[in-house]
């Protein structure tokens, strides 16, 4: 068990003031891109800093490819950590930044230069090589930071909201760039974010951390479609949390169907539950349709409808609602301890 490849977190816990993280256990396979999702203040960054060695060793075990990370200083962990700020070294050029980690490896000069050139190429920043790191833009700075982190060939890459504070286009470009780099290098990566779309777009696996506890781990689609608790579902953007009987579930339980899985059909369609449109919010490609079912006791539901179909809808209009029974997720109602915590 102790020699499994990849990152193994075993019952790790850490306390700082009133905040408690864990105990939590997690395995990140080699070559995986693990998305760690959670709201602000849920302990995502703390977990990364524990793994990277920026905080005192926690209780529990941290292992990377069988090595116990606990007693190792940060420089011996082979864990690369890219903070939210990027922390570029302002007195060095972009190329010197990328090559910084190689200064501490016994490498021939030519090998060093080749690695730096390869990473600059991979991240599309070769044209910035001679520029001062203090003068590059936000998106460029992130690329430099990630390239710099990958230069010493770490066994694990930790990214703390690498796409935060970027404009949508810069975000999309950097996503593509990170995905390319991951394909080329295959470094196991833990990517922390509070953005759900990022998880869909980039992750091979994901975990949801809420209030210091790891709520759920698994494949991205699985976690999103089958949240194990109401709190996780709520954080993952499930809008339609209603008493289970409405969706055909047992009494005393809660159930949800994701807004994109709720189909709005004609009022007289066979098997459809009748409802009235109460509001429409056009979001360009998709339209948020708020609906009040006429029976069944659910207050309001949210459905995502393509804009072409939404053109036929208007508040007050009677429609029918349909869903596949397989899309319904049901929890026992008592399984919501995180409900009270905001």
């Amino acid at each position: 068990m102790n020699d499994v490849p990849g990152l193994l977190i075993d019952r790790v816990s850490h306390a700082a003031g009133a905040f408690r993280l864990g105990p939590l256990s997690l395995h990140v396979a080699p070559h995986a891109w693990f998305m760690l999702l959670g709201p602000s203040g849920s302990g995502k960054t703390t977990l990364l800093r524990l793994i990277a060695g920026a905080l005192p060793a926690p209780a529990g075990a941290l292992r990377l490819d069988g090595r116990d990370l606990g007693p190792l200083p940060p420089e011996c962990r082979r864990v690369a950590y890219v903070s939210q700020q990027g922390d570029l070294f302002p007195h060095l050029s972009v190329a010197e930044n990328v090559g910084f980690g190689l200064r501490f490896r016994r490498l021939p000069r030519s090998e060093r230069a080749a690695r730096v050139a390869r990473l600059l190429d991979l991240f599309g920043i070769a044209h910035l090589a001679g520029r001062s790191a203090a003068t590059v833009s936000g998106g460029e700075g992130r690329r430099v930071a990630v390239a710099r982190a990958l230069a010493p060939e770490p066994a694990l890459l930790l990214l703390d909201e690498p796409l935060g504070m970027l404009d949508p286009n810069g975000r999309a470009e950097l996503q593509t760039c990170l995905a390319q780099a991951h394909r080329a290098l295959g470094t196991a990566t833990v990517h922390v974010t509070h953005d759900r779309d990022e998880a869909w777009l980039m992750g091979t696996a994901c975990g949801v951390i809420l209030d210091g506890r790891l709520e759920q781990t698994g494949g991205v689609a699985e976690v999103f479609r089958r949240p194990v608790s109401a709190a996780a579902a709520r954080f993952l953007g499930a809008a339609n949390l209603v008493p289970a009987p409405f969706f055909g579930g047992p009494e005393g339980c809660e159930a949800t169907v994701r807004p994109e899985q709720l189909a709005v059909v004609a009022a007289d369609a066979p098997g459809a539950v009748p409802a009235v449109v109460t509001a429409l919010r056009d979001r360009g490609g998709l339209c948020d349709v708020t609906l009040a079912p006429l029976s069944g006791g659910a207050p309001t539901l949210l459905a995502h409808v393509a804009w072409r179909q939404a053109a036929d809808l208007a508040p007050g209009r009677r429609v029918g609602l349909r869903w596949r029974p397989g899309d319904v997720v049901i929890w026992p109602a008592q399984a919501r301890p995180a409900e009270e915590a905001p």
Partner: protein
Amino acid sequence: MPLALFAGHALLHAILGRAGWIAPFEFFNLLLLAACATVGLLTALGRADRFLGPAVMFLLASHALIGHHLAPDSLTSGAILLVNILTVYAGVHIFDALPLRYGIAFTASYALLFELFIRRMNNAEPIFLLALLGLAAVGRRFRLLASFWCLVLAFTVCQPYAWEAAILAMLLLNAAFSARAAMANPVARVGLIAGLAFLSALLLPVVVLLLSQTPQSVAAVLRAPEARAALLLTAGTATLSTALLALFGIPFAYALSRLAFRGKTVVLSLMDVPVVIPQSVAGIALLLVFGGTQPLGSLLADRFGVRVDGALPGIVLAQMFVALPFLVKPALAAFDAVPPALEGAARHLGATAWGAFRHLTLPLAARGLFLGAALAWARAAGEFGAVYFVTASPAVAPIEAFNRFERVGLAETTPFVAALLLFSLLLFLLLQLAARRIPTLHAAEGGAP
């Protein structure tokens, strides 16, 4: 209407002149001033072309009728007329083309020059006329006008130190006028002008001292063996003191910046002790411990053969004592300015604590450390009090200056002191230039790897 105004003025001044309250020449000039101001105001109201002609006509007429007869000779009369026409033209153009405050400043300058040269300086008419020529030339720019007044005041009010005062005042003005802020900030500007005025008043003696010597007299001082010995001794001991201070002060400052420990604030305030205690107290305190008759001092002298008081180690010790905060405080600030997050990033990239310090923190703090060392050096080299008590002889430069002053007086000491000052300023300049070449955290230089 304007002519009626002129007439009224003329009448008033004629009466005042008769009554003996104003001298005739004065009266004539005041009349012209009134004419200039009136025409100027009318011009500002947009009627320049209509009144410039009449104004000049009036000038010619009044000169022919009054001014010509008041002038001592026809040459002066012609000069007065020409200058007056020029002044009126310049004034009218200023009122016409620029905001009203320029016109007011111009008129006020005219009145002040008149007050200064005609009333206060006993009818210095030729200088007055020359000054008016200058005024006509510079009136269109506040910056030039202010420089003009610097010169005029320096050569009239601060006569003995005219050049020194003029140079300082012009530097001050240049700074005040070139000061810019994104948002206009009159409070800061007034603060700057007041502060610069104060600073230049304090610096005046330094400039006077520098300008009092010829290069030859300074060179002569530097050829004298005892002066040269004092300077060399000072430079040597100060360098040694600074090096020793840096050796333990820089790591200490780094530790103070990075570590939190109980009693840290106490340690930080202890660092200020050498600044707050009088130099004589520092000197005597050092003697009490290291003096040849004291336990520790005699131990050092007898066992290790190191005599502290009256010898080189005493100089270095006293210099280190007073210069300590000047090195450690800037070093602390320099290390504080390097974000610990950057060091963390270096550690995650595989740098050891020493590697991160050596490759990251030290280069980023280099300028602050260098400036701290420069300050400490200057403080060590300039120390008089503490060194005097511990080791009065061999004499470092400040003590040598004091000895000369005691022995031969002010005049004979001045060349040596000027040489000392020149030496310090030159070094200061070199250090500043060197520091500029060290990249800082924010404006780092780019370069190929």
